[in-house]
């Protein structure tokens, strides 16, 4: 885990994103412990090389290969002399630096297909610049506030099981249920499932509610003229349907006298309850 996460307890010799090495002696005698810290403070040969170049304000596009290679080799030699396990990448970089240096010493520079002179340092410079770009990006990324580290998330309690949950039903569920009924009804031909205008059924229930408890209402009271002609028609059909199904009784003492409406059997219902009370 230590290799992945620094718990913040890093000594002054090796800062994470700042200048990595500030207290090293220049005579290159480095105590093995300090060297280990030094080694660990670099993220690899590119990082070390970049450090050497940047420390001297060298133009990265015109690296003095002899000087830089010599410095790099001194660090690598010191690490090897201290018998520190040196990652193979450091040695690979050393070989590459020496190769570039020797190619620069050749009298005729190599030439590309287009005839341009190829600087043997070009690929190294590209890699150094790309690495430096990412190094900076990592630094900026690390400065962004992080959940948990730099700010906390809100978590208010929601006691879920406090109330028994009732199933949700959507109109689509009703449709599905009806499809099931239909499918069965088709098979059993004797089931006649009629399709009626729903608003009539709704109005039928509404009228029965108005008449609940044996109430008598004037016929006109069933009609809400403010809500438009279609509803008046629907209400009238609903009344006819209720009469036909013997749910309501419509009475009129004589012609042109007020028409009254009541639920069928409302009287008997009341009588029934009276009898029960008396018993």
């Amino acid at each position, binding site marked *: 885990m230590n290799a992945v996460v620094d718990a913040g307890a890093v000594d002054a010799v090796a800062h994470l994103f700042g200048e990595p090495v500030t207290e090293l002696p220049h005579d290159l005698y480095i105590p093995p412990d300090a060297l280990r810290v030094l080694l660990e403070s670099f993220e690899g040969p590119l990082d070390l090389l970049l450090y050497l170049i940047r420390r001297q304000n060298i133009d990265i596009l015109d690296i003095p290969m002899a000087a830089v290679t010599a410095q790099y080799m001194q660090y690598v030699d010191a690490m090897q002399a201290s018998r520190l396990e040196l990652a193979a990448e450091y040695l690979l970089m050393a070989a590459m630096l020496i190769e570039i240096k020797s190619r620069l010493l050749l009298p005729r520079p190599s030439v590309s297909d287009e005839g341009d002179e190829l600087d043997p340092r070009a690929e190294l410079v590209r890699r150094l610049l790309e690495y430096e770009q990412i190094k900076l990006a990592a630094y900026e990324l690390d400065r962004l506030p992080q959940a948990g580290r730099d700010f906390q998330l809100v978590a208010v309690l929601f*006691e879920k099981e406090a109330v028994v949950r009732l199933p949700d039903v959507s109109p689509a569920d009703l449709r599905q249920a009806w499809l099931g009924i239909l*499918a069965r009804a088709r098979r059993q031909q004797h089931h006649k*499932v009629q399709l009626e205008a729903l608003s009539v059924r709704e109005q039928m229930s509404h009228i029965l509610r108005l008449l609940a408890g044996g109430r008598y209402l004037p016929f006109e009271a069933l009609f809400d003229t403010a809500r438009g002609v279609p509803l008046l028609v629907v209400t009238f059909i609903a009344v006819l349907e209720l009469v036909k199904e013997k749910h309501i009784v419509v009475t009129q003492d004589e012609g042109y006298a007020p028409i009254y409406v009541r639920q069928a059997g409302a009287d008997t219902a009341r009588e029934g309850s009276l009898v029960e009370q008396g018993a």
Partner: protein
Amino acid sequence: MSELDSRLDEAERAHLKKVLEAALLVASEPLPVATLKQLFAVPPSAAQLNELLDELAHAWNGRGVELVRLASGWRFRARLEMQPYLERLNPDKPPRYSRAVMETLAIIAYKQPVTRGEIEEIRGVTVSSAIIQALKERDWIDVVGHKEVPGRPELLATTRHFLDDLGLSGLSDLPPLAELGNLVLPQADAVPEPANDA
């Protein structure tokens, strides 16, 4: 007025409440006053904290979340009335009505007012009392009258509450039955339904 007022000015009180609120909102467990004290380099007294917490709880009146004092400390929690909404977000195995309940409900919705006998005739099986009772208790159906036939059976209809719960402004908003006829094929394998399958 109180002793507290003489020592903490309004800006200080507002700041303390802001920190207390943030700490309680991010806390995963109730925070006792002793813990809340640790928030501050110069902690207020327990009495001052309790007064501030009471004010904070009061400020949350009428919101969907409340600040309550429990045996183990202060904590924010969702109010009970928020439960129906919040549960929609956590649909871990939502309870479902059986097909018998759904068909009964559909018949009452589409054919109201109907008697239980008429429902049984359409479904082809007995309708258990438990189904009717469950729908009545949910206040989705009620008795709107009695049919004038022997036994005077109840006439069942859906309620305003049913429409509200389904987000309908009226029964005419229900999926129209006329279009449904072509969507189904006759059931090939007729599995007899148990009589009491609520």
